[in-house]
Each structure stands twice: as structure tokens, then as C-alpha cells.
């Protein structure tokens, strides 16, 4: 009975979480008439792919999606590559400089985007990175880095220092101890940070709006907003279809990386 209740609760939770996605799917398959019906229907009466056709015909969804993917993957990888050693240093070597650095990381989260966007634009312009995916990636890495650093620092601190000491007693050098003992235990944290960085970059709109000026370089969030008109009036069908497609790469990325998250956890358990 207890088990059944648990499954029931889990089912309810899954239904709650998947509601927006299912509603998006339902909307994307409806005709304009059905969308405007007073009594909403879950299952479209006359399912149509016209919204998908319109979305593809009007906007370069594939190109924008690929560009978003490039920026988001690059942001995730670069962020973790830069943040991991820094997080390790901040977690293990505690001193005045470390405290200042952590304070600086926290302070950097205080500034609203709108305050820094113009100076940032000018810096990028001097570096000739405006209107480039490289420029956007640099900004996303900068934007995501503080929180990623904070996350990873927490994961590093959770790995007992004694494990490294035990490895060194067994004859392993610092690098060997890091690679063989600490890295597997950190894997879940690294994967979680990758996910966080990827999603932050994938969804980011404001920086992309300001930095990317030509249609040839624009990312998916910029493309999606094209279906919204003045006074909040939107072309719901194509917007739902395009938004649904925009979630697919995220879901795939999650599906792939989630397996790593699980194996990382197990690897950590064995080593521990």
C-alpha cells in the first residue's frame, strides 16, 4: 500500500511537471479555430501540422537551433573547464585571497544585466566580437561562471580531504590522487554544472538580443520571440510549434548527460 502511494505520488509529480510540455504539444497540433474555442481540449479534434510548417517556413529554426546548440555546448564545456580548477583551489586552499575571491563571485551576482550590458557591448566591440557566436559564448561563460564556480566549490568541499591524504599515503602524487580519487567523486557535480550552464545559455535572451544583430547569427530565443506581436498578441500556433521544437535539443542533452550523472554517482560510490 505504501509502495502504491509512493507510485501514485510520483505519477502526480510527473504529471505536474510534464503539464506545460503536453499543453505545448496539444497547442502546436491545433487549428486556429480550436485554439480559440472557449472550452479547451486536451486532444486536438483535427490535429494539424500546419503550425510546424508555418514556423519552419517563416523562421530559420534549424539554423537558429544549431547556433544555439553551438553556443550552449561551448558555454557549458568552457565554463566547467575554467571553473573546476578554480573551484578546487577555492575549496581546498583557504586564506584571505580565497575569501576575497569568493566575495567577488557573490558580488558579481548583484549587478542587474541591464546595468552591465552597454559597457559589455563596448568591450566586445573593441574586441570585434559583436555579432559573433564567439562573442556571445564569451558573455555567456562570464555570465554563468560565478554560479558554476559556486556550485563546483560546494561539490569539491563535499569530497573529504582525507581521501586525498589516504591516496598520498598509498604513494599517489597530487595529480594522481586528483585523477583517480577526486575526479570520479566530482563527476555528478560536474555533470550538474554542465547542465546548469547549458540551460542558462540555451535560454538566454537579453545578451543575444543586444550582441547579435544579423539574422545569419541569431539564436533560437531571438527567433521564437518573432511570433509575438504588440500588446502581447501572439501567433500561438507557430509559437507553440517552434517552442516545442526548441525544447527537443535540451531534452536530448538531458537524456544523454543524465546517464553520465548516474554512472558518475555509482563510480563515486565504488571509489568512496
Amino acid at each position: 500500500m505504501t509502495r502504491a502511494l509512493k507510485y501514485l505520488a510520483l505519477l502526480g509529480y510527473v504529471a505536474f511537471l510534464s503539464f506545460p510540455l503536453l499543453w505545448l504539444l496539444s497547442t502546436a497540433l491545433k487549428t486556429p479555430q480550436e485554439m480559440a474555442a472557449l472550452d479547451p481540449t486536451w486532444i486536438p479534434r483535427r490535429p494539424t501540422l500546419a503550425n510546424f510548417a508555418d514556423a519552419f517556413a517563416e523562421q530559420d529554426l534549424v539554423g537558429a537551433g544549431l547556433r544555439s546548440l553551438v553556443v550552449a555546448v561551448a558555454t557549458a564545456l568552457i565554463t566547467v573547464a575554467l571553473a573546476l580548477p578554480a573551484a578546487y583551489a577555492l575549496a581546498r586552499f583557504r586564506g584571505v585571497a580565497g575569501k576575497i575571491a569568493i566575495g567577488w563571485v557573490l558580488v558579481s551576482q548583484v549587478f542587474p544585466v541591464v546595468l552591465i550590458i552597454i559597457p559589455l557591448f563596448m568591450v566586445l566591440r573593441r574586441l570585434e566580437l559583436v555579432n559573433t557566436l564567439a562573442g556571445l559564448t564569451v558573455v555567456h561563460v562570464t555570465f554563468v561562471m560565478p554560479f558554476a564556480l559556486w556550485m563546483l566549490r560546494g561539490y569539491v568541499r563535499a569530497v573529504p580531504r582525507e581521501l586525498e591524504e589516504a591516496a598520498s599515503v598509498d604513494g599517489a602524487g597530487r595529480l594522481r590522487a586528483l585523477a583517480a580519487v577526486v575526479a570520479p567523486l566530482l563527476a555528478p557535480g560536474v555533470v550538474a554544472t554542465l547542465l546548469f550552464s547549458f540551460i542558462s545559455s540555451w535560454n538566454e535572451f537579453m545578451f543575444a538580443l543586444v550582441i547579435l544583430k544579423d539574422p545569419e547569427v541569431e539564436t533560437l530565443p531571438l527567433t521564437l520571440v518573432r511570433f509575438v506581436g504588440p500588446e502581447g498578441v501572439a501567433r500561438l500556433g507557430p509559437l507553440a510549434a517552434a517552442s516545442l521544437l526548441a525544447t527537443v535539443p535540451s531534452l536530448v542533452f538531458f537524456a544523454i548527460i543524465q546517464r553520465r550523472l548516474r554512472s558518475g554517482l555509482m563510480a563515486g560510490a565504488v571509489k568512496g
Partner: protein
Amino acid sequence: MKRLGAALAVAAVALAAAACGSGGDGGDGGGAASGEPVKLRFLSLAWQKESIEANKEIVADWNKANPNIQVEYVQGSWDNVNDQLVTSFEAGDPPDVIHDDSPALSSFASRGFLLDLTGKIPAELQSDIPQAAWDTVTFSDGKSGQGVYGVPFLQESQVLIANKKLLDDAGVRIPTPDSPWTWDEFADVSKKLTKKGTYGVAWPMKSPVNKVLNLALNFGGTFFDTQDGKTTVKVGPQEREVLQRIHDQLYTDKSADPSALGMGTADPLPGFFAGKYAIVPAGVYLRQQVAEQAPDGFQWVTLPPLKGQTSQQGAVSQTLSVAADSKHPDEAVKFIAYFLNGPNQAKLAKGDWLLPTSTSAAKISALTTEENGWDVATASAKDLVVAPFLKVNGFDEWKSKVATPAMQEYFADKISLDELAKRLVEEGNKVLERYSR
């Protein structure tokens, strides 16, 4: 550790120094080398399918005919265009040709971001657009003069979209542009149309301010009074008429559905199609949504704007402007003149379901056909005059901080008309005073 601290300090100083730089050059450059075509960036806010197609088609035609002036079509969105423009103006890298609406131009003009087009617009285009429309883009230059900061090309009027069957069943007179309903007649008709399960009218008042201020001109209500360069808010008998009449429909006649008050412009449509509302007052562009979403066999009709003392309505317009920082202002003006010629304006108006400012475009048969109420919509353009709030410095803040919440409370029957008037004036004047210093 000391090294780490020093490195962080150096990095912070370097970032600050770079950030504080003037920007100067380093952009994508505007001055095309000799022999290379001039490149213009055109930020368009078209969003309806037909409108995007029309925009792209006109740009393609221009590019084909003008190999030396190539225009790149860049699609923006209404939702965030002002954020996008402010950052690009401040950073000195705006699009050359900018699509926006006239209320947004005032502050950009006074801050020197837009080119004054006075004397630069070809005579043919100048004379094709009536002075009332030019008035919507004439603003202070931020010093002592005035200038024209955009070419107005699309306008919106408030019409009534009605369920034809319900009107016929109730046996009410169908108004025409020559003989529109008065507000009194509208109130009577709304009462007649109100039956069990059906309200005569739905007033979507999620954003009530522009709607009320535009309609208030029916009774000469302007809401603002400017004397000796100082603007104050006024809510006298003329300004109270429309407010009172809508309120009466909601709570005295009970011919308007109070549950529609929190809705945005398009939100009442499902109820309208289901026969819950007989009439929806709306901008002319909403006809597109009705035409697209109406169930098979649903009969609807566009009715002309209401008449008070006059049928006048406040108008704002969609505009094309040239950035003051554009490297090619003359070419940009040439492109605008082509983009907004009569036939092209007709295409754009048809695509966006709005009214062209061009008098020659308004005569084109596609915009005078009875189909989808184009004849009624186009005829309503004659009563559009410049919205008085358009010239008011601080209007946006007055609208968002004072007028919107106060009007929402009034329409929700939480405060009286006297209390509303008091708040609009007293709190409003405090806001406007800051802008007149």
C-alpha cells in the same frame, strides 16, 4: 595568494578601463570602400505572416533595383524593441532604418538618437501623407526646436467587431461609416443584446489607458493641458464621459461582462466566437485574428467607431526612422521613400491589417473591399487625429505608475470616478512635474 589577488585586481581594472572607453570606432564600419555597395540595416517589427512576406518582398525588390544600396532585413519584435534600441543607441551601433511606433520616438528624438528628417523627405511622399499623421512624429529636438523624426505609415483605429447573427436576431440597426452608432445608441444596443448567457459587450481592459485616452477624444477629452511649456493632467467633464459610460455598461446596465476586464486585447475572442459577447471593441488589426480563428460559418462584421460629439480618435502611428549615427542617412531616406510609396504602403497595411497613412494607398481596392471589413476600417482613418498624450513628457511613467492601476481599480468598481480623477491629477502631476524641470 598575493599573486591571485594582484591578477584579479589587474583584470578588474582592465575590464573597467575597456568598459569606460567611448566606443569610438571598431564597429562594423559604415563607410563602404569605393566601389562597394552601401549596406543599410533595416530593423523591422513585422510579425504577422503576410506582413513579414510583404516586408521581405519590398526589400528584395529594392535590392534588385539598387545594387549600390543593399538593405539587410533584420527582424525585431515589439516585445523588446526599446531595450534593443536603447542599448544599440547608447553603444553607437544602431540599425540605419528603424521601425517603431510614434510614442517611442519622442524620448529618442530629444536624446539625439534619431535624425531630423525635416526637408529630407521627397515631396511626393510628404504630400501623400496627411498633416495629422506627420503631427504624430513631430517632436522636440531636446533643445529649443522641433523636428520630424520618422515617417508615419500605419495607423490603428478603434472599431467594434460584432457577431452578425446576434445583431440581426436583436433587430438592431447596423451602423455605417456615414451613420455610426452614438455612444447612447451603443448603450441601448448593448442592453438589447444582453440576454441569458450573452453580454452585449466585452471591454478587455488589461491595458486601459491608451484605449480610454484615444476614445475620450469623442467628447473632446484630452487629459492633458500644456501651458507655458508645463503640462498638467486634467480630468473634467469631457474626460469623464467615456470612463463613466464604460463603467455604466459594466455596473448599471450590466450589459458588459466584468470578467472580461482583466483580459488583453485578443483574449475575449474565444467568448466572442462562443456567443458569450456580441461586440468586442478593438483595434482594427484584431480582424486578422477573427478571420483566422473564427469557427466555420461564424458571421462577424466590423462596425465603425462610435460617435460622441465627434468620431475623432487619438492616433499613434507606426513609423520608419533613421538613426542619427547612421553612416548613410541619405541612402536610408531614399530607401524609406521607396519602402513607403503608395502601393507598398497598401501591401504593408494589408499584411498587418492596419490603416495606411498614405492617401493614395487608402484608395487601393484591396483596402476598400467589404471583405473582412476593410471598407469600414479604412473609412475610420479620416477621424484619426494626433493623440494628445503623444507630446507629453513623462506620459509613459504617468501611464504605468498612476493611470493604469487607478483605471483598473475604477473599472473593477473599487474606487469612484471622483477618486479616479483625483488620483490621475494629483499623483499624475507629481510625475509630470519631474519631467518639466
